[in-house]
């Protein structure tokens, strides 16, 4: 197995060899590029990458340019996972047949997709890849909305968020459904490693990415990716919003090993109220009215209950 890259500090991490170029068309303040760089910079190994249709894809491979200094493929919205799984199958075939051009180098196979591509349209493809046990990592850039098409709800969109297809109005508080628990579903595949990460908690994130790279088989990473455009916050606040998500426990950071062993990897010193997280984003603005204010309390209860459940699972080791 290849050596795990040693990362001493943030400066070294953020300036290490970049295979994802700064030249791309993502919005200023988009967390996608931060996440992608953290994933790619976590290893010195060769990379074979895929992306599903979405913001990352349309902003990084516009002919005749590419932002990728590693082999990269995009097919469609639903099949980034299977694209990289096909490449991984070819790697195994050529290895077996002795036809690899660089037989001493074992690349990592990584697919990126947004929450639309992951929770919704590509769900079956990802499930298939995980069931078959391809040696690959799937990274969901979870911005809880179809951002590339202009802000429609996905099954990752949280309750009360206003989106263009589930807008808040005089008779609606916006999204009515709870966010799908994708991590639990992927863990239920028996995957060797699944984890939630936040780009702002970079040490936690890089440790998880490296654990994922070290694991044999399919690894699922759900990365919170605050969207300045659709969540409606100032581009310079991306990291602050990400911190609010993790420190309010709206987006708890944990991992599940072999489908059962759950470890919480980040416990905020000061847990902040969910209200503060919601209040920082325009997509929840309508919740701060008399009509819909009751939802904030329900939000807090849901987050508390989930945190309780995660802690009990961690203790029980099941």
């Amino acid at each position, binding site marked *: 197995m290849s050596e795990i890259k040693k990362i001493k500090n943030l400066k070294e991490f953020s300036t290490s060899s970049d295979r994802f170029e700064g030249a791309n068309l993502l919005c200023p303040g988009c967390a996608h590029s931060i996440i992608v760089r953290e994933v790619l910079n976590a290893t010195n190994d*060769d990379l*074979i990458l*895929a992306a599903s249709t979405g913001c990352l*894809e*349309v902003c990084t*491979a*516009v*002919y*005749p340019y*590419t932002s*990728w*200094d*590693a*082999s*990269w*493929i*995009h*097919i*469609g919205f*639903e*099949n980034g996972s*299977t*694209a*990289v*799984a*096909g*490449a*991984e*199958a*070819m*790697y*195994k*075939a*050529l290895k*077996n*047949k002795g*036809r*690899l*051009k*660089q037989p001493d*180098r074992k*690349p990592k196979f990584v697919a990126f997709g947004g929450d639309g591509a992951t929770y919704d349209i590509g769900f*079956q*493809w990802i*499930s*298939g890849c995980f*069931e*078959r046990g391809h040696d690959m990592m799937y990274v969901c850039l979870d911005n809880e909305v179809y951002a590339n098409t202009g802000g429609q709800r996905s099954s990752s969109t949280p309750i009360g968020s206003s989106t263009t297809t589930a807008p808040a109005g005089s008779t609606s508080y916006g999204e009515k459904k709870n966010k799908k628990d994708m991590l639990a579903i992927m863990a239920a595949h028996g995957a060797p490693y699944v984890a939630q990460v936040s780009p702002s908690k970079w040490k936690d994130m890089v440790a998880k990415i490296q654990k994922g790279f070290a694991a044999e088989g399919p690894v699922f990473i759900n990365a919170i990716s605050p969207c300045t455009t659709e969540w409606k916050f100032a581009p310079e606040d991306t990291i602050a919003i990400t911190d609010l998500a993790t420190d309010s426990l709206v987006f708890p950071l944990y991992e599940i090993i072999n489908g059962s062993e759950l470890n919480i990897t980040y416990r905020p010193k000061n847990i902040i109220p969910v209200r503060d997280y919601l209040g920082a984003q325009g997509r929840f603005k309508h919740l701060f009215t008399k009509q819909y204010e009751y939802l904030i309390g329900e939000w807090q209860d849901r987050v508390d209950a989930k945190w309780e459940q995660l802690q009990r699972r961690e203790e029980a080791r099941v």
Partner: protein
Amino acid sequence: MAETMELRDIEVWDGNMAASQALRQVQVDVVAAYPITPSTPIVENYGNFTANGYVDGEFVMVESEHAAMSGCIGASAAGGRVATATSSQGFALMVETLYSASGMRLPIILNVVNRAIGAPLNVNGDHSDMYLGRDSGWIQFDAYCPQDAYDLNFIAFKVAEDHDVRLPAMVHQDGFMTSHTAQGVHTMTDEQGFAFVGEFQPMNDMLDLDHPVTHGVQTEEDWHFEHKARQHHALMTVALPKIQDAFDAFEKYTGRKYNLVETYNVEDADSVVICMGTSVETAMEVVDELRAKGMKVGVVGIRVFRPWPLEQLAEVLKNVKAIGALDRSSPHGTVGMLYNEIAGTMFNTGTKAVLTNYIYGLGGRDLTKAHLVGIFNDLKANVDAGKPTTPLQQYIGLRGPKLSFF
């Protein structure tokens, strides 16, 4: 190393076995597949070969046909020989990715065992799926019997993987009539079969770690048109001559001759039917019988459906006086596809030929010799009258009142 399989000079194979044996012999690196009637045995046979050491590539059983082609695209872009098989609904589910495969210039081979597309659901053979693929940018070969299904696979790999072509190719065969009907098939040894196609030569391969590549980019109004035009250009100017070269090479190699347009007794024929699949062979039998009665009739078989061999077909048809275009797919609101293609082929040639259209065999309905005799009688009347004596479009073999249009 994969085990070598000892084959008799002539094996009794159905079309599915013929296709799977060809895939085994060319030593495909990755097969990503999903079962669907009537192409399932191609995948099952291949699984059996894999389980017994005759395949040393990867055999990935995915969760849908869309995923099958998605996996094939990823594998092909990674840099190796790739193939799969499907039919009907599965083909329809794959369509999105068919355009990706050709647009990304990936030489994937897809065996399509032709079957109707529902609703109503139907497992039997017609050409609805083949027609659905016709604008997808793939090369499309049509097999009429198991021998063709075997041979055309080798030819397909040779053409598709040529670095001047780099386009995916389908090998079509009729569901059940070819896929499940065992016939004598002349074989090549494993060594001969592989040697005809040769080692896969990668190009723009993702797994060349020293030369990263970006596959499947975004192009908008500034570049999309040029990309699609280049793809069309490759099909029109490169693929067709390369297919002819491969046919010639295959004939030298095995003695078995294929043509872009297959003809049977066409040279002096007044009337011909044009069709695809197993119907070509049925029509040949009928032509023999009618010739014995003094009728000047012939058959034209489309061997290469895409790229469409327009010039070759016009040449073949230049002296014909009546043409029956036989379409085994519901045209749903217009003339049949072959009628359209042949009309387009002949329009500027100064032909006076009368062209009529027959819709037949949907959902596995038999095309009988009696049907074909009836068609040839229609065509004879058209020759004598110098104009259509029937409606332009007639349904053949349909129960109930006679159905015709135009």
